[in-house]
């Protein structure tokens, strides 16, 4: 008997315990990013929503411009602009109920502000007077996370805890395309799917992680495709189409709230400014690419729709711009005041009850400050068995 004949006699059966965990087809993202503006579907969109999105987008753009200007004046240590990505930022803030939670990354100051945070408090981290300038519970906005993707498991844990307590709360977590390569992204999505946690992940794929393009970040067909491996739906959306992002996120949040578990949304967008004011984007991308994306600007897309439907005349547009200008003027003025800092804050929030070691260090600093105030030359020498440290 030949080998081929033996093979023919063998009838393959699956391993006894094997069965598919879930049908992948419904989880797969559409082939093209979901769009509304510029399509027939746009006619159905509620004018109030369009106006709301427009107002926030104009404010958001103005905010980005103002914050970037503040870096040039030395008022901010650094600002990672979200110019070009305002549709994602604004939609992320608007789709949430008051009781829901937002988990932003370091680029998402705007989402926090659109959710109601005081613009100055939202910039405290970047100005450098404290790490988180706001009480996260007040607007249910977690601290802006600088280490990439590490906020994602927090969102999962919070959503899970809320569900355990019987609360109707959803968490929305933002992450960049580069952040999807981090282990925490994987662990968070896996936990969320296994726990069916009411959480939505929004990837703002803005083309680059600092200088590294998406092609060097992943070999996946799209970032939304990654969802399938975790057993959650993946959705692709035009990240510059505020209405589309709002729609997709709203659906995902409703799904989560109804107990359907997490969704991974990839918003395809573009970072118009450099990574931060400290970055030179000309080293890794050409002007023509940027210009192409300028032609697909999130503010213009909504404005065009409003105008074409006769929902926005010159006076209304001016009113929106004036409102944004007033916000910027207020921000500028308040940011131009030097914050009053208390050095003793250094020790105030390390532990619930400070350790004896911190208490000693605290009194050392207090003595130094007193001496400074007295104009004397500094605290006296510590004896060999003195306070020490």
């Amino acid at each position, binding site marked *: 008997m030949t080998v081929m004949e033996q093979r023919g006699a063998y009838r393959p059966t699956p391993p006894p315990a094997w069965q598919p965990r879930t049908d992948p087809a419904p989880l797969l993202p559409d082939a093209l990013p979901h769009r509304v503006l510029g399509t027939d579907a746009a006619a159905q969109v509620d004018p109030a929503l369009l106006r709301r999105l427009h107002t926030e987008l104009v404010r958001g753009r103005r905010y980005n411009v103002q914050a970037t200007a503040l870096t040039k004046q030395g008022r901010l240590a650094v600002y990672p602009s979200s110019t070009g990505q305002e549709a994602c930022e604004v939609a992320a803030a608007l789709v949430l109920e008051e009781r829901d939670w937002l988990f932003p990354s370091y680029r998402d100051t705007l989402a926090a502000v659109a959710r109601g945070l005081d613009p100055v408090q939202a910039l405290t981290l970047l100005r450098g007077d*404290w*790490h*988180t300038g706001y*009480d*996260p*519970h007040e607007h249910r906005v*977690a*601290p802006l996370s600088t*280490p990439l993707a*590490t906020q*994602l*498991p*927090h*969102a*999962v*844990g*919070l*959503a*899970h*805890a*809320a569900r*355990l*307590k019987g609360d109707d709360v959803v*968490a929305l977590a933002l992450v960049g395309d580069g952040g999807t390569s981090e*282990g*925490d992204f*994987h*662990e*968070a999505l*896996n*936990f969320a799917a*296994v726990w069916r946690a009411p959480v939505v992940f929004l990837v703002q794929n803005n083309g680059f992680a600092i200088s590294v393009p998406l092609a060097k970040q992943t070999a996946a067909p799209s970032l939304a495709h990654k969802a399938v491996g975790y057993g959650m739906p993946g959705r692709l959306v035009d990240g510059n189409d505020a209405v589309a992002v709002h729609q997709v996120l709203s659906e995902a949040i409703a799904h989560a709230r109804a107990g359907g578990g997490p969704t991974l949304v990839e918003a395809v967008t573009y970072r118009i400014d450099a990574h931060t004011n400290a970055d030179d984007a000309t080293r890794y991308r050409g002007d023509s690419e940027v210009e192409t994306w300028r032609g697909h600007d999130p503010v213009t897309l909504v404005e065009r729709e409003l105008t074409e439907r006769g929902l926005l005349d010159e006076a209304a547009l001016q009113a929106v711009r004036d409102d944004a200008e007033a916000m910027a003027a207020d921000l500028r003025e308040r940011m131009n005041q030097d914050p009053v800092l208390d050095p003793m*804050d250094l020790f*105030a*929030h*390390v*532990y*619930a*009850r400070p*350790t*004896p*070691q911190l208490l000693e260090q605290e009194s050392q600093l207090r003595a130094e400050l007193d001496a400074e105030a007295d104009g004397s030359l500094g605290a006296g020498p510590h004896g*060999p*068995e003195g306070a*020490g*440290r």
Partner: protein
Amino acid sequence: MTTVALKPATMAQALGRALRDAMAADPAVHVMGEDVGTLGGVFRVTDGLAKEFGDDRCTDTPLAEAGILGAAVGMAMYGLRPVVEMQFDAFAYPAFEQLISHVAKMRNRTRGAMPLPITIRVPYGGGIGGVEHHSDSSEAYYMATPGLHVVMPATVSDAYGLLREAIASDDPVVFLEPKRLYWSKDSWNPDEPPAVEPIGRAVVRRSGRSATLITYGPSVPVCLEAAEAARAEGWDLEVVDLRSLVPFDDETVAASVRRTGRAVVVHESGGFGGPGGEIAARVTERCFHHLEAPVLRVAGFDIPYPPPMLERHHLPGVDRILDAVGRLQWEAQS
């Protein structure tokens, strides 16, 4: 007076009992980790908790340490008090980013608005014949991170009491459980769990006048044994069990060394960059004029944790401690 029936309990059982009592006392307490549910943990510390409190309170998580601790952060943000188990010392390392960047700092970042009452239980240290990655002493990494408490019991009563305290603490606590003491036994009254000194206080386990052995966790029984053996040499050794490295009890330690005039720090993690250096410096700063000899350290070698058949050469034992005690006769030698 009623006589209480004392029953023997192992450290592992005492830890389990502490978890159980904490969960019964406070519905916010959630236990989670790898294999903590049905199996009851690889050391059986969480045995029975899933049955008694359900899967939602004692949860088998996916196998992902950063995910476990990261999820615990979010849970604590929402008012729960997660107690996570890292299966072994060296497997806690994937969670270090969450631990250092978020767990340790969240209170500080948010000016006290968002404390994270998370207890991180880590079976740690050697002496059980474990293969690679199952015997690390990782306390130096934790104690170098402001915002964390670092606690290690050495007795059955302390295992119970310190764990209850850790869970009740509004600060994150890294709770290091000396693996080789899991099966150590003590008799206690199961109806009335022991009252213990709070976190941050050291305890004099044996008083003596000639020198102080400063130690903690798995090395405490070794030091007590050494102190017994030293009697034959005419040395009356005091043994201080630190019980926590953060906060550090300078007072108890310095008071002891001022009494005895000599000190040896004993721990099984490596000496270079290890806790002993910090402790020796603190003792020297406080007790210089009382010291009859330099503060000595008896530590593990500065090597990756050795294979099981060689670990006895690495771990500080009675002889090495006695040898150091001998070297404390500084004046006689110089």
